[in-house]
């Protein structure tokens, strides 16, 4: 018997009904692949330098993948990351060098809540100390911060749409907070 390995998986917010009205739309985007990318930005191979955002606090779309710049030597790719072909390596025992790119699958670490609509910024501002004005945190920006005391990655997308990447264990708490805060809208 060949069982689909994905048939029985349950997303962290499977029980979250979401919010949907004229000013606000909140729902989970489950099961997107997430890959942590560690590399020295000064030693990137051209194939990588073309794909990774290199300005702090920004993300960019690269093919089918959104890549967020998290820290000086750390990125997070959302979506299937097609690997850059690596040089064949004769010495498999070689230690990780400074020009290597290290990929770690962290898909299960966080789930994504999509918050969209004209009320999205006001909703997030209830629990987030960052300035979310479009002139400061417009499309293409991302930040790691606290939302309602939970650590999240905020990602500003087109037209008042935000993706909130929240740790799986905090997801239900944050969803409950969002549902409560959304009563105002």
């Amino acid at each position, binding site marked *: 018997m060949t069982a689909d390995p994905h048939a029985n998986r349950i997303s962290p917010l499977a029980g979250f009904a979401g919010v949907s009205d004229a000013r606000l739309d909140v729902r989970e985007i489950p099961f997107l692949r997430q890959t942590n990318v560690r590399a020295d930005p000064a030693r990137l191979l051209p194939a990588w330098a073309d794909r990774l955002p290199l300005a702090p606090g920004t993300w960019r779309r690269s093919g089918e993948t959104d890549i967020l710049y998290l*820290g000086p030597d750390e990125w997070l790719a959302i979506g299937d990351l097609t690997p850059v072909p690596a040089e064949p390596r004769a010495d498999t025992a070689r230690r990780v060098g400074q020009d290597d790119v290290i990929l770690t699958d962290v898909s299960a670490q966080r789930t994504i809540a999509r918050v969209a609509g004209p009320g999205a910024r006001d909703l997030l501002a209830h629990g987030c100390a960052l300035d979310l004005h479009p002139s400061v945190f417009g499309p293409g920006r991302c930040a*790691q911060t606290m939302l309602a005391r939970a*650590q999240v990655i905020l990602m500003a997308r087109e037209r008042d749409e935000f993706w909130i990447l929240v740790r799986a264990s905090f997801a239900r708490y944050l969803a409950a907070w969002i549902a409560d805060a959304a009563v105002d809208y």
Partner: protein
Amino acid sequence: MLLIPCPWCGPRDEAEFHYGGQAHVAYPADPAALTDEEWARYLFFRDNPMGPFSERWNHTSGCRRWFTVTRDTTTNAITPETSR
């Protein structure tokens, strides 16, 4: 609440950070050669100035990187320090 300038993320609330104590405390070159008193001084004794104080902070809720700032202990005015 302090507003701490993370070199990577920009100014953020103090609640996002973890305090790391005095900066520029060098590990002894030859720890085995220290007397117990010298070792205890290295481990536990820190400056407690009234005025500028170099200290380590970790942006735990953000980029998770350590950095050093100078904080004036009388005014809490924080200025960035370039060394990491």
